């Protein structure tokens, strides 16, 4: 919780000050070591057999890091997460790509808890957490969230260092915290270990770990772990040579720092290692900690090292790297797509909630789909607004969190110490909801140095319309427009959709407030010539600013005006820490006006009763998709094409997220790449997650078994060059579909096309919509050379009796829409031509065992009706030729195409005739089942760059 600076602290901040900047690198102890005892492996195993174990197996905890190396203690092969307690000969690990498992590799479990993604997998339609954890009641009897403070940095003073962690902010949905149990191995003394605020004393320098298990009244418990660094005597921290960057930014969600150090003091630097930047501050000659969080104010920034940024300059003997906070790490954690949906009663699965709220969905992502709860504090303001479901199509945990938050103006940030805070954007709260936000300090001319930069912007948005659903009545569509029915003088019009409102009044408040925030005139950069550890981007807090008109050339007047800190930067030079803050002025808008949605049938009849929630476009950062959908570089394309390795997945975002047989039934995705030969081990494959549904009686039902979909690979000219083979039913995502390509030889493609088809003839009755009787008033023998009827004639060259009517049925696919030209509803997408030879209108002369061929030949007809086996003088039956596209239920024409039955041919042998008196042509149409495919993610595997 942020708090106001006390007068005593303010005096120190405004006085003489200097700092020493240090780095604490967590060097976790080895808990257990072993070697791989397994000769062959799955591609990404979730368990590995081991031998030569050393250590106490019971100390291996879920969430710990296991190093995999070619020698003891090394991690040159990779790192994985321990996902559950090991067996006597098996480690159970999180599936991790890119590890070349070999027998006899060295395995080292270390006492490290860091952020990892925890997958939800689907087997036979059942969701499992972390490979094999079945759901019981976790979404009705919730696990608590442990809040126990950040990693601590202490100095021995007179031989002791005392840590006083606090866990009273731990929380749980629907229950209360009933017990605390702390553990502090290595401490010289402890007290209150079963209270919320114990005291832990150390009498020697070193690195320790404390843990706390909180128990809720519902019987559920959770455990958190935090490193404790104790320095003193000969145990010294690493001195920081320079700090090129250290900033927290609300837009990116958290903090990051770049550091350069000269001497690692024997420490090892690797990816994922916890790093704590901290200071020893002197205030007017007195060493003291002045800052928040209380007890941890010496921490400048805490995060984990991004291994990709480690740079060793051997010539200079320096090491530099980037430390990234929680948000950046969540963005690095890939997460399988899926949904969080509402259950009818109590939740029965990991992806269900009886009441899906933003807070619960975020809690699920942070504490169940990641290990974050083990290693950092998570504090979420409860927002009770409900959604029918949440789309989790983003590729990383951070993207999925943004998707969940977007509809409810909920934002997630982490503070300097990596603690995660969630809540409604304070700038979008009602005035009454801001009363609890503390004012950290009033910035006066005694505080700021250099020039104050005031960005004033003119109006950007002249009219804002927001749309969404009502919290308690999701089928009710609410729309509000601000400033009113008419726009302001200048600026763009903007529409934001898929929000959730308490009610219409809330929508009106929000439209006005959003417009005010969008058009906020003032953003102020203030360079505080001081080491200020009180202002942060979260939790929600104000600073106030007082300016007289003569204080700045700009002439702005602020009288203790409230601002929200949106960015905080620290600069360190020659022992001085300067703080720069970027502030957003608090504004209040006037409520917008109510817009009544159009009647059903209009454009507004689009209640989102299924997850289809695009990103909230204003406040969370935009998604960063794979640029241009081009595969990332592979070192050797030939190696890639050899198919020996698994490549990808490459996440594609389709232009269309919902395919609908009544609307847009196909989508194309530009992805120039090469498909692998179909004979290689790892074939090119596309996996589409999401789910299908069909409508009957106005109600949507899941369509688990629908297989009427296609994936095609097209070349640059739009020709289909490879067709996907739908080889699997389910993949990791909810009701995912997988299609494997089997081209002969590597194949260059330009794009993918995905189509959804209806189930033909599955519903409805065929109805005759048009017919014509072509009679010619008497028997006409086949040898007759004149045209019979309108277009029925006998071909004198081939001796064939033909209908050459050019019966044209106009199909078209436009914007992926299949329809008939004639005035039929768009979902009447199947049509049959029936040629009926009425009874006693066909007679055969001579031997007939004839075949009937229709052209084009890829059109088929009902076999039961065409075959003539009897030698009848007069064929006593009605013969019907049913023509429809029975082989391929999709149509390849990109625009209006006239498809016609060119002719019908009844072969007759020389001297043997057919005679026909009349033919009736009928045109039948049939309602095709309406299907939708809600696509949440498209993943392309095992393709290679051009």
């Amino acid at each position: 919780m942020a708090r106001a600076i006390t007068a005593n602290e303010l005096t120190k901040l405004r006085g003489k000050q200097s700092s020493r900047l240090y780095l604490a690198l967590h060097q976790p102890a080895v808990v257990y070591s072993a070697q791989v005892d397994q000769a062959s492996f799955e591609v990404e195993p979730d368990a590995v057999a081991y031998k030569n174990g050393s250590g106490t197996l019971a100390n291996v905890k879920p969430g710990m890091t296991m190093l995999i190396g070619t020698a003891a203690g090394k991690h040159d092969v990779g790192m994985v997460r321990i996902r559950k307690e090991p067996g006597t000969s098996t480690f159970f690990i999180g599936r991790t790509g890119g590890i070349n498992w070999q027998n006899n590799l060295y395995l080292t479990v270390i006492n490290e808890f860091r952020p990892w993604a925890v997958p939800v997998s689907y087997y036979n339609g059942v969701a499992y957490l972390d490979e094999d954890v079945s759901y019981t009641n976790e979404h009705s009897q919730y696990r608590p969230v442990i809040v126990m403070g950040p990693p601590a940095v202490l100095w021995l003073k007179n031989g002791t260092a005392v840590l006083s962690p606090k866990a009273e902010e731990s929380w749980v949905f629907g229950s209360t915290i009933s017990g605390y149990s702390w553990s502090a191995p290595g401490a010289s003394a402890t007290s209150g270990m079963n209270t919320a605020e114990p005291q832990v004393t150390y009498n020697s320098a070193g690195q320790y770990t404390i843990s706390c298990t909180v128990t809720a009244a519902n019987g559920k418990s959770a455990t958190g772990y935090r490193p404790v660094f104790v320095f003193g005597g000969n145990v010294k921290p690493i001195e920081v040579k320079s700090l090129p960057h250290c900033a927290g930014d609300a837009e990116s969600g958290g903090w990051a720092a770049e550091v350069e150090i000269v001497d690692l003091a024997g420490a090892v630097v690797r990816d994922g290692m916890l790093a704590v930047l901290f200071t020893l501050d002197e205030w007017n000659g007195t060493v003291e900690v002045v800052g928040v969080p209380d007890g941890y104010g010496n921490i400048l920034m805490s995060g984990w090292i991004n291994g990709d940024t480690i740079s060793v300059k051997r010539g200079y003997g320096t090491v530099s790297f980037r430390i990234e906070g929680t948000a950046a790490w969540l963005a690095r954690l890939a997460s399988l797509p899926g949904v969080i949906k509402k259950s009818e009663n109590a939740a029965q699965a990991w992806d269900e909630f009886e009441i899906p709220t933003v807070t619960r969905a975020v809690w699920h992502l942070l504490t169940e789909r990641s290990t974050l709860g083990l290693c950092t504090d998570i504090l979420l303001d409860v927002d009770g607004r409900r959604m029918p479901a949440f789309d989790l199509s983003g590729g990383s945990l951070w993207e999925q969190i943004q998707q969940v938050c977007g509809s409810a103006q909920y934002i997630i940030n982490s503070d300097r110490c990596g603690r995660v805070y969630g809540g409604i954007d304070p700038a979008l709260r009602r005035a009454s909801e801001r009363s609890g936000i503390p004012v950290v300090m009033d910035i006066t001319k005694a505080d700021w140095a250099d020039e104050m930069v005031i960005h004033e912007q003119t109006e950007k948005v002249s009219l804002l319309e927001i749309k969404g659903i009502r919290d308690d009545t999701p089928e009710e569509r609410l729309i509000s427009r601000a400033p009113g029915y008419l726009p302001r003088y200048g600026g763009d019009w903007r529409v934001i959709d898929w929000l959730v409102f308490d009610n219409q009044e809330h929508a009106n408040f929000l439209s006005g407030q959003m417009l005010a925030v969008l058009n906020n005139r003032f953003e102020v950069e203030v360079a505080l010539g001081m080491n200020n550890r009180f202002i942060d981007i979260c939790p929600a807090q104000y600073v106030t600013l007082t300016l007289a008109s003569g204080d700045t050339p700009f002439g702005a007047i602020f009288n203790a005006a409230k601002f929200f800190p949106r960015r905080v930067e620290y600069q360190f030079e020659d022992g001085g820490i300067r703080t720069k803050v970027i502030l957003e002025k608090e504004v209040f808008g006037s409520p917008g006006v109510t817009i009544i949605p159009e009647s059903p049938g209009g454009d507004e009849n689009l209640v989102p009763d299924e997850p289809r929630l695009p990103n909230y476009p204003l406040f969370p950062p935009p998604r960063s998709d794979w640029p241009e959908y081009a595969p990332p570089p592979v070192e050797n394309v030939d190696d890639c094409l050899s198919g020996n390795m698994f490549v990808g997945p490459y996440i594609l975002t389709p232009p269309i997220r919902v395919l609908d047989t009544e609307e847009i039934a196909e989508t194309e995705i530009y992805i120039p790449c090469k498909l692998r030969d179909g004979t290689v081990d790892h074939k090119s494959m596309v996996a589409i997650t999401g789910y299908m549904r069909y409508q009957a009686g106005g109600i949507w039902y899941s369509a688990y078994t629908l297989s009427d979909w296609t994936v095609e690979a097209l070349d640059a000219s739009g020709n289909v060059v490879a067709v996907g083979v739908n080889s699997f039913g389910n993949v990791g995502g909810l009701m995912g579909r997988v299609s494997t390509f089997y081209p002969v030889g590597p194949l260059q493609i330009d794009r993918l096309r995905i189509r959804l088809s209806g189930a033909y003839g599955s519903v409805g009755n065929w109805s005759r919509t048009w017919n014509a009787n072509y009679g010619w008033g008497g028997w006409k023998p086949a040898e007759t050379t004149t045209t019979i009827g309108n277009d029925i004639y006998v071909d004198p060259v081939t001796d064939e009796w033909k209908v050459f009517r050019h019966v044209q049925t106009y199909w078209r696919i436009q914007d992926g829409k299949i329809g008939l030209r004639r005035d039929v509803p768009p979902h009447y997408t199947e049509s049959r031509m029936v040629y009926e030879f009425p009874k006693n209108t066909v007679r055969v002369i001579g031997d007939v065992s004839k075949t009937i061929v229709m052209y084009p030949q890829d059109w088929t007809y009902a076999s039961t009706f065409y075959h003539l086996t009897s030698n009848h003088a007069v064929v006593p039956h009605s013969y019907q030729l049913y023509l429809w596209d029975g082989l391929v239920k999709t149509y390849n024409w990109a625009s209006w195409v006239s498809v016609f039955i060119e002719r019908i041919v009844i072969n007759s042998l020389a001297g043997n005739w057919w005679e026909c008196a009349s033919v009736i042509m009928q045109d039948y149409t049939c309602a095709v089942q309406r299907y939708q495919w809600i696509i949440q993610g498209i993943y392309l595997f095992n393709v290679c760059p051009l």
Partner: protein
Amino acid sequence: MADYKIGTTLGGMTNIESLGVPVPRSRFQAGERVTLANGGVRELGWGRAEWVFPILTMTQRNALRNYCPSGSAAVYIRTMTNENAYANYQAMMIWPEEEDQRAGRVFDLVIRFNLIALET
């Protein structure tokens, strides 16, 4: 008697005169001055002390150099502040990049100390 001292530990500081080094001219800056919007200044960052020796023999020079064999070294010093009083500091001793050495003497040697922390 002047009381300029230097050592590698606080308790092990030695009066530089006992090392045969003459008393320097010293300069002291409490910290970088940040000018505030109200016209005031704030001393921010490490203080700085400089010991200026107009002329040293090589023996005297080396007696100081022993404390800083490379470009910089962590030391403790006792030096004169602007308040005409001596104070102890944990300091980073910065040896000058260039020296004016002639005829076995060093002229105008300026040794800078970044004053990391006041030691009381």
